Every structure is written in structure tokens, then in C-alpha cells.
């Protein structure tokens, strides 16, 4: 029960992952499913660029194109970027604070399975009568008018996966507040932990408005309510507010962990302490705080009036200040350092000019009167791809290379990694830089075709050719992953050689109990401090070696999520008057509540790893420093 890395059959491995409550395995689940949805969203992106490669193309029909853009946006935001970032948070954050797991391992598993089933549910719409087609923003008047069940897949799917994300956010908050190792004060927490902390707080506050909006939408569409039905006295702009009160913080939920990953990379690969750590922390908090004050800048053209527009314009501009603070602190971190251009660092270095470009166009759009021209044009498409691909996706790719060794115990190939980088990076700029000008030249976004007489042909063709380079980069990454898994060359605790934080002080991958003895933290970059002091063990300990209490795995989170998944089909088809729908709805909910009941009534006290077993592990070199 206690020893690690036993040889297991395939079925047993699957069962292990379905029942696991170990944050490191849940991280792998998040990475795999997030990666899968990233590929799905990427294929959708390619379809978009193929359709727009020339004027009047008929590769996709108008309706299909709207489905593809909706699913591309929804998939990339909710099912790819967020889960992959949650994967890194799960894999790394508990290690960084010296914890044995997250605060609620069972909930961690439940959060994952809810996200997973929500994502599957959403994507099944392709095979069950058509995907949602009202854009990822799902504006109410269009969404209510949309025929078929696409929008219902969107609302129900996002409700389920939103529960999962909310649970994950709460779990991380509690973990960071309660489970830091002795000496790990708030102002000694690594930046990635800090950004996880702030992003989790944003999740906690931002997802409820989305859930409320989705509930209204579900009630309007499935049960004939009239929250957004104008002819019944409803108001569609309420949806826009609810969506963007969630939607703007969502952007920071994505970008803050990305900032965290880059902060770690700059410090490690410059072999230097983060410059202005305190400023970086407070800038993170400020960005999170302002994130809730600016949602109406997505609505400058709605007609809220000049006072609202002016106030939100100024509030939005302010965000540039803490973001600028971050950029300059990173620059000063590498200044005077000893820079190694390993793959994660190349991404981090490339991120700076890319993200600055995305940031300045953000400030331009904060100028409300100018935004009347830029809004809903290709300029905004270019802008948000510069921040989300240039910020979040570069961070995801960097993080994949950086944390792969810690998660799997093997190194991704540096050579192939560099090929991926160059294809992806050049392709990215080729695709999106020119879209700024398409927008300025009058091209609206979300158009399935365009006329040849409007001067947009050449730039669209260039943009599409860039997308091919990006796709090539991703394919090379896949090859890299497969080759790395096949080669299976094991590596040690600190494969980058310059690790600074606790996760690099223990084996890769860490034993399932993480730290045999809880570490004692003596300052910021605690592993670096110990290394510089010549401490061969990499850490000092806050407790003697003793028994460790661990939770048991459980299939219940999977079953609860499955119950919700099944119930959603019932709700969806209930409106069609299908006789079996009610039975499915009740059956699914019964399964869900029954498994909750089992969880509540059955005591599961977990198990202990004895000191003897830990010593046994240590002989194999599997734990920290013994």
C-alpha cells in the first residue's frame, strides 16, 4: 500500500487514476485532459483560419463557422488554459509550501472530475445535434434565439465544470492559508504560490456571477423564464454584465498563474533572486483587485453613457501600472544575472516583448472613444490573442518544459523544445500581428466570410499561413512528449541545476507523501539558501521522522460527477418532451446524492505510513535527504 512505483497492469493504473486523491496524480489528469482539449481547440482554430484564408471561401458553412468559433473560445478558456494551469498549481504549489497534499484531497478529485465531465458534455454537442453558436460570450438575445440544443450544452456544461473550478479554487485557498510548512510566512512564499493564491481568490469571487448568469439562461431556455426575453420585459444587457463581471477576472485567473510560472523561470534561469519580490507580490494583489473594477470596458459600445464609459476607461488604464511594475521587475531580475537559455527561459524571454505588445493595445482599447472603432473588430482579436497566447499559452508551454521533470521524472528534449518554440513563436506573431491592421481596416470579428472588394485578402492569407507554423510547433511538442516517455531517462531532484524553491529539493517525481519530514523554511528561496549554505540534504526539518497520516483513494468523486453528467442529459431533453428524459434526470441526481450520502455516512479514516516504511523508501533514495 505504501511503496511507490510498483509495476501495475493497465486496468489497475486506470483505476488508480480514477480513485486517486493525490495532488500529483490529479495534476497529471488535469494536464492530460487539458492537453487533449487544447488540441481540440487548436483544430477548431485551424478550421477558422482555413475558412478565412481567402475571400468568399466555402470550406465551412455560416452556421458551422459560428459553432467552431464558439467552441474554440469556450474550449481554449475553460477546458484547456484553466485546467492546464490547475495542473501546475496542483503539481507544484503544495510542494512549494512544504505540504503533504492539498487541504481537501477528496474535493480536489471531485473538482477534477466535475471539470472533466463538464468538458466532455460540452463537446458531445458536436455529435448530438450541433454545438453552441452564440460565441463564447453567449450574448443573451442571440443565445435565446439559437435553435437546437447547442446553447443548452454550453450552459449545462459550463455549470458543471464551473463547480469543479470553484471547488479547486476554494481548496487552494485553504491549502495556502493553512498548510504552509513552519517558517513559510506569506512573504516567503514563492511567486507561483502567490499567484495561485490570488487567482484562487478571483475564482471564488468571479465564478458565482457566471453561475447566476448561466442559471438564468438555463431557466429562460429550458423552463420558459424571461430574465433575458425582451418581449416579456427581460433585459439582455444583464447577461452582458453578469458575463463580464465574471469574464474580466477570468482573464486574470488565467494570466496571474502564468505570471507566477514566468517569475519562477526568470529567477531559476538567471540564477538570481526575484528583483523586487515585495513589489511583485503587491502588484499581483492589485491586479487581482482591479480585475473586478473594470468589467464594463468590454461594454463601451453598449450605450451605458459617457459617465460609465469614462469611469471604466480610467479604471482600466490604472491596471497598466501594476502590470508595468511586474515587467520591469522581471527585466531587473535577469539584469546582472547568469542567464541560461534553456527552453523554459526562451519562452519566458519571448513572453516579455509579446506581452508588452498585448498590454499596450489593451491600454489603447481602454481609451473608450477609440474603442468604439476597435471593439468587435479584428483589432480586439489580435489583442486578446497577444495576451492569452502570448501570456498564458507561452506560460503553459514554458511550464510544461519546466515542470515535466518534476511531474514525470524525465526531461523533455531541449532540442525539440527549441524547434517547438521557434515554430510556435514565429507562427504566433505572423498570425496575430497583422490582425491588428485588419481590424483598423474595418474587418469585424466573428465573420464567417468576407468580400474580396474590401482590401483584406492579403493580410488574411498571411494570418492563416502563420497558423500552420503554430500547428507545426504543437505537433513537434507531441513528438517530444512521446519520445521522452519512450526513452524514459530518469533524472534527479534538481534537473535544472538552479532550483530555488522546495519542489526542487525532493525527488522527481516526489514520493506520494511528498516530504518524509516537513521542512523548516528559513527564507525566500529556501532550497537556494540551503544549497548556498552547503546543506547536502537541501533542507532542514521541522519534525523528526515519524508516521504519516494519508487519505484513502475514492471512486466517489467520479460517481458524483457522473451523476451530474447523466442528470444534465435528462434536463436537456426534458424540454423536447422525451418521455425518458425525466427518468434520466432523476436517475442521475439520485446517483449523485446517493454517492454524497455514502461519503457522508461512511467513515474513511485513511491510513498511516509507518516510520519503518519511510526508512525503507529512503534506502532506495526515494525520499528527501536520508
Amino acid at each position, binding site marked *: 500500500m505504501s511503496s511507490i512505483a510498483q509495476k501495475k497492469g493497465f486496468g489497475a493504473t486506470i483505476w488508480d487514476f480514477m480513485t486517486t486523491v493525490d495532488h500529483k496524480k490529479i495534476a497529471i489528469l488535469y494536464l492530460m485532459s487539458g492537453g487533449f482539449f487544447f488540441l481540440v481547440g487548436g483544430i477548431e482554430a485551424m478550421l477558422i483560419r482555413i475558412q478565412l484564408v481567402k475571400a468568399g471561401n466555402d470550406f465551412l458553412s*455560416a452556421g458551422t463557422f459560428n459553432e467552431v468559433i464558439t467552441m474554440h473560445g469556450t474550449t481554449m478558456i475553460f477546458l484547456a488554459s484553466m485546467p492546464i494551469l490547475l495542473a501546475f498549481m496542483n503539481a507544484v504549489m503544495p510542494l512549494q509550501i512544504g505540504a503533504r497534499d492539498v487541504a481537501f484531497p477528496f474535493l480536489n478529485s471531485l473538482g477534477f472530475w466535475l471539470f472533466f465531465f463538464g468538458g466532455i458534455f460540452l463537446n458531445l454537442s458536436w455529435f448530438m445535434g450541433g454545438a453552441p453558436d452564440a460565441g463564447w460570450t453567449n450574448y443573451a438575445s442571440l443565445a435565446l434565439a439559437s435553435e437546437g440544443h447547442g446553447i443548452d450544452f454550453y450552459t449545462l456544461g459550463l455549470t458543471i465544470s464551473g463547480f469543479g473550478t470553484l471547488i479547486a479554487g476554494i481548496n487552494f485557498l485553504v491549502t495556502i492559508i493553512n498548510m504552509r510548512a513552519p517558517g513559510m510566512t506569506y512573504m516567503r512564499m514563492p511567486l507561483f504560490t502567490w499567484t495561485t493564491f490570488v487567482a484562487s481568490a478571483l475564482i471564488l469571487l468571479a465564478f458565482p456571477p457566471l453561475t447566476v448568469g448561466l442559471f438564468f439562461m438555463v431557466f429562460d431556455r429550458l423552463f420558459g423564464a424571461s430574465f433575458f426575453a425582451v418581449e416579456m420585459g427581460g433585459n439582455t444587457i444583464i447577461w452582458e454584465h453578469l458575463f463580464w463581471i465574471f469574464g474580466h477576472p477570468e482573464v486574470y485567473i488565467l494570466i496571474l498563474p502564468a505570471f507566477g510560472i514566468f517569475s519562477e523561470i526568470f529567477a531559476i534561469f538567471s540564477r538570481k*533572486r526575484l528583483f523586487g519580490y515585495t513589489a511583485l507580490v503587491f502588484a499581483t494583489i492589485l491586479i487581482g483587485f482591479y480585475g473586478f473594477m473594470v468589467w464594463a470596458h468590454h461594454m463601451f459600445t453598449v*450605450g451605458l453613457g459617457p459617465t460609465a464609459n469614462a469611469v471604466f476607461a480610467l479604471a482600466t488604464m490604472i491596471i497598466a501600472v501594476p502590470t508595468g511594475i511586474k515587467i520591469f521587475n522581471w527585466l*531587473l531580475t535577469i539584469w546582472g544575472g547568469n542567464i541560461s537559455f534553456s527552453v523554459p527561459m526562451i519562452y519566458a524571454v519571448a513572453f516579455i516583448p509579446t506581452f*508588452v505588445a498585448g498590454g499596450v493595445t489593451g491600454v489603447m482599447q481602454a481609451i473608450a*472613444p477609440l474603442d468604439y472603432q476597435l471593439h468587435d473588430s479584428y483589432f480586439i482579436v489580435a489583442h486578446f490573442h497577444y495576451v492569452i497566447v502570448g501570456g498564458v499559452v507561452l506560460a503553459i508551454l514554458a511550464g510544461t518544459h519546466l515542470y515535466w521533470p518534476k511531474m514525470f521524472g524525465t526531461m523533455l528534449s531541449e532540442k525539440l523544445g527549441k524547434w517547438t518554440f521557434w515554430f510556435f513563436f514565429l507562427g504566433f506573431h505572423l498570425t496575430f500581428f497583422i490582425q491588428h491592421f485588419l481590424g483598423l481596416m474595418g474587418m*469585424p470579428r466573428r465573420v464567417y466570410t468576407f468580400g474580396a472588394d474590401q*482590401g483584406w485578402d492579403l493580410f488574411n492569407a498571411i494570418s492563416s499561413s502563420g497558423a500552420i507554423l503554430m500547428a507545426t510547433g504543437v505537433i513537434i511538442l507531441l513528438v517530444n512528449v512521446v519520445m521522452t516517455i519512450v526513452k524514459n531517462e530518469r533524472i534527479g531532484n534538481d534537473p535544472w541545476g538552479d532550483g530555488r524553491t522546495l519542489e526542487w529539493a525532493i525527488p522527481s517525481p516526489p514520493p506520494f507523501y511528498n516530504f518524509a519530514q516537513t521542512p523548516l523554511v528559513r527564507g525566500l528561496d529556501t532550497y537556494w539558501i540551503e544549497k548556498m549554505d552547503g546543506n547536502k540534504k537541501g533542507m532542514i526539518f521541522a519534525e523528526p521522522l515519524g508516521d504519516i497520516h494519508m487519505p484513502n483513494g475514492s471512486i466517489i468523486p467520479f460517481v458524483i460527477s457522473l451523476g451530474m453528467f447523466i442528470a444534465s442529459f435528462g434536463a436537456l431533453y426534458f424540454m423536447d418532451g422525451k418521455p425518458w428524459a425525466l427518468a434520466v434526470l432523476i436517475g442521475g441526481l439520485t446517483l449523485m446524492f446517493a454517492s454524497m450520502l455514502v461519503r457522508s455516512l461512511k467513515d474513511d479514516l485513511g491510513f498511516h505510513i509507518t516510520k519503518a516504511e519511510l526508512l525503507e523508501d529512503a534506502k532506495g533514495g526515494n525520499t528527501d535527504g536520508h
Partner: protein
Amino acid sequence: MMKGIKKWRLFALMSTLLVFLAGCGREEISTLIPAGRVAQDQFNLLILSSVIMTFVIVVVLIIFILAIVKFRRSKVGEDMIPEQVEGSAKLEFIWTAIPIVLLLILAVPTVYSTFDLADVSTMDVEAKDGNSSHLTVNVTGKLYWWEFEYPEQGIVTAQELVVPTNERVYFNLISADIKHSFWIPSIGGKLDVNPENVNTFYLEFDQESSELEDGVFYGKCAELCGPSHALMDFKVKSVDREEFDQWVTAMQSEEPAAVEGALAQQGEELFGQDGLSCISCHATSGVGQGNLMAGPNLATFGDRNRVAGYLEHNEENLKNWISNPQEYKPGNLMPDVATLNNGEKLSDQELDALAAYLMGLSVEE
């Protein structure tokens, strides 16, 4: 000698300008070639912010390039352990203060312009003769076309907005169904067309559209509104005030011009109540109120620049459109013509007749 240099300079300037303009898109639709006061204000903001932002990018790039060139491992040595600097309060202050100053420079024109462009207080001011001193157009967005009502003049048109140059034109926007957004890029920024409330703003047209290569400015729907969102185009004719008044007078004449030619007369019959009843949705007189008819007003059809808002204006396209509107604008609300013709498709001859009739509908001499 000096003169030569000056000429050369001028030439260089003009040619770079030309290259630059070629990269600016088409004058009918590009925000980079403003043809109205509102678009000009917004273009000026674009230039101001671009200059400031370029400055920011250059500063960052200089530090960035110096850092990655000077401090690479191959240069500073494999084993070098850098000094672990904590930070600098002075530097933090500098890079907090300078951005704030830059933002303040941007904030002033932003706030001024936000209020200026939303100022419609003069809309209802009456001139001495008791009429409104400014033109007001009521715009209704529909799936997937635009209706333009001139309430003071008592006329309605669709798909092609006609406006006078060099004066403010006020717009009241509302949607009859899904949310749309009203955008004429070279004249000014967009405003949403909501189903639940009227949005009001103004634009100014400083250039006559006849000077343009295509003779019209291009207008767009900028908010996803369904499958044919991309095709929900409209066109704008800007003419001087005199010509505009003539156009209004022509539109206001209750008597439609006599239909000439046997083919067109057959088309008129087909179009009317005794034929296919097209007229129950499409008025052929410009006199009327907005938002009454289910389909676009066709009084000016013969004068238009496009069929269905985006197809080249010829009889071929018109006939294709009438026989199969769903193919050209998926999801639009025009019924299949067979359902109006006892389940039968129109014959080629009937289509010719309809096309001849419609192309003859004109208010411009």
C-alpha cells in the same frame, strides 16, 4: 540646391505616404482613412496612444535586449553566482510614476472625447422655422438588413443610408430582433443596436461618397447576430445638402413613376397583391414610417450599389437572390418564393420580369 533637396524630400514624403496609405486598407471602410469628424477624433486618439505606447515598447526593448545580451551564461561564465539583489525602492518609484504620468496624458483626451462624442443635447434643438435643425435617422437592425427611417421627412429606406455632408447627423438605433452593432468604420466608431433600448449618437460625413472608387462608404454589423452576421452589410451615400434635399423630395412624392416596358409591367403585377404578394412585406414607396414592414423598402432599389447588401448590383444576382435567398444569406427571414407561387419555382421569364421591374425602381432621375 536647397530647392532640389526640398523637392526630393517632398517626393520621399509623398511616396512613403503612398506606401503607408496602401497599407491602410480601402478608403470606403478603413478607420485609418477617416472621412468624418468622429472618425478623425478617434484616429487622432489612435495616433496619440500609438506614439506613447511605442515609447513604452522601445524603453522595454532596450533594457530587455541589453539584459539578454550582456548577461548570457556564455558571457558571464558557467559558475558565476550573481549577487542576490533584493530590489530597489527608487527604481520601483520610477517605474510606477512614469506610467502614471503617461496614463494621465492619455486620460485627459479620453474623458473629453468620451463626453464629446456622446453629446446629443443639440439633437432636439429647433431651428427658427420650427423644424429640427439637424437630421435624425432612426435605424432599425433586422436579420440581416438595416432600415433607415427619416422621421422628420416622413420617408423610409433600407440598406443604403443617404446623408448630407458637413453637418451632424443623429442616429437612434434599435434592434427588432437580435442585438446588432452599427458601424461605418471610415466615418466613426460603432454603437450597439440593442433590442431593449434606443441608443443615440451622432456622426459627421465630411466627404462626398461619389469621390470614392465604389461610390459608397461601407457599413457593417459588428455584433455576432447569427449565421449571416458577416453579410449584414449596408452602404452609405453622402451627398451635399442640396442633393440630399432633392433626394428627400423625390422620396416624398406619393406618385410612383410609371413603369415602362411590358416586361417590367409584368414584373410589377407579379410583385403586387394579385401576383406573389411581395408587396405585403416590401413597400415600393419611400413614404412611410419605420419598423412597419417585414422586409426592406425597395423604393430606391434601382439606385443601389448592392443586391442583398453585399452582392454586385446586377440582374443576375438579383434573380439568384429571389430564387434562393437562403443560399446567399443563411437564416434570413425572406420566404422561399415557391411558397408564394403555389409551390412552384418561378420561371426564368418571371424572374426576368421581376428583375426588370425592381431595377426600374428609382428616385434618382
